[in-house]
């Protein structure tokens, strides 16, 4: 978008030459070159000469020369400035492109204090939980693990027949009593009721 006008400018300059010195007067002021100013000077000088050697014309001629000199200065300074700006624009454009290519890395280069940390919010593994949350989770895990171990032991007791099952269907009962040692049978029954009592006591207390 910015490039084509430069070419147009050059083309118009070419056109100006083709149109002859008068063409310069038809140009847009922002597109005038020093060459155009000289062309204008030539045209005006020629026309002043045609007016003859009237002293008022001579006086006017000085003023016109001065104005043309001012115009020349403005145009040449303007074109220099335009050239400088164009160069600067190009280098900035390159810089922006380079920064864009480096992508998100550029943002983490922001300098921070030594006790600060930059977190990439797009990283699925970014730190996001607090110490207290981790503590709570660990505590709960430990509690559950302890309960699991107790339950596993209890299960093992039932499996090995140390504690007879609470309710056994008629068919299985015989088998279970065979597994359970008869000498322990009465004490086991007693234990079962204590456990039962405790169980009800505890569950009643909780609710």
């Amino acid at each position: 978008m910015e490039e084509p006008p430069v070419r147009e400018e050059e083309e118009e300059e070419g056109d100006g030459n083709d149109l002859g010195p008068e063409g310069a007067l038809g140009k847009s002021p922002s597109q005038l070159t020093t060459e155009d100013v000289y062309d204008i000077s030539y045209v005006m000088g020629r026309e002043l000469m045609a007016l003859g050697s009237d002293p008022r014309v001579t006086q006017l001629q000085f003023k016109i020369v001065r104005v043309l000199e001012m115009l020349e200065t403005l145009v040449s300074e303007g074109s220099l400035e335009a050239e400088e700006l164009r160069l600067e624009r190009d280098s900035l454009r390159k810089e922006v492109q380079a920064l864009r290519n480096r992508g998100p890395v550029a943002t983490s280069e922001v300098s921070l204090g030594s006790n600060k940390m930059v977190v990439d919010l797009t990283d699925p593994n970014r730190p996001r939980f607090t110490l207290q949350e981790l503590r709570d989770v660990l505590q709960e895990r430990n509690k559950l693990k302890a309960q699991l171990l107790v339950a596993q032991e209890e299960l093992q007791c039932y499996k090995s027949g140390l504690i007879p099952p609470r309710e056994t269907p008629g068919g299985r009962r015989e088998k279970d009593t065979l597994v359970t040692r008869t000498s322990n049978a009465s004490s086991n029954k007693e234990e079962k009721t204590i456990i039962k009592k405790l169980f009800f006591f505890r569950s009643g207390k909780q609710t």
Partner: protein
Amino acid sequence: MKSTLRPLRPPVSRDRIIASFPKWYTPDACLQLKELFHGQVSSACERRDTGTVGLRLSKVVVVGDLYVGKTSLIHRFCKNVFDRDYKATIGVDFEIERFEIAGVPYSLQIWDTAGQEKFKCIASAYYRGAQAIITAFDLSDVQTLEHTRQWLEDALRENEPGSSIIFLVGTKKDLLSGAACAQAETEAVRLANEMQAEFWAVSAKTGENVQALFSRVAALAFEHSVLQELERRSSARPQVGDAGLIRMEGCPSEAQETERPTSLRCC
């Protein structure tokens, strides 16, 4: 008789039954040289008069640098496995091991702590009330031995002076040749004496000395607990003594049920 005392417990596996006092690893750095249980302790055990010792969970904490093999050591003992892959422990973990020492049931709750610095603030909250402190280091890495001083200091800070027995355990024994191992052990023995700790060299990979170490830990912690219990009872006979005993024999499962949750909550 045993089954009436612990109705909810399956029998202790054979390798957890400690009848005679387990031996030290080296006489140069051990907590005691006796080969028998303390007289008072064995007679209390015979009378089944060990109070609540058998009903409580005794706490063991394992501390030390990351990657020395604390988790591997515990897993070898509790599960008899060795995992070659390293997985850092997050915060803390624990295992419970049941023993029968001199005929008395005894349980150890073994706390596995994270070695990574970032978890120290979490793990240190679990040091309190440790009957035994195991400071672990890598026999092949002298730096980790030096760091045990700091680990022990941190663990002791959370405990009453003299209330915990201390072990200094060198791991990865399998990685060292005979001569290198002897050299590392000499340095460790020196530090163990300074720490008033008992020294052991083990390998979780081969299992060398692992069972022996924990049997020793259990026996010493048990004896320590029973002696403390007896001492406490003699100094405060009216409150503790008989009441505790009657409750235990008359209503065993109640005593157990009320005792267990409190000890589990200690963490």
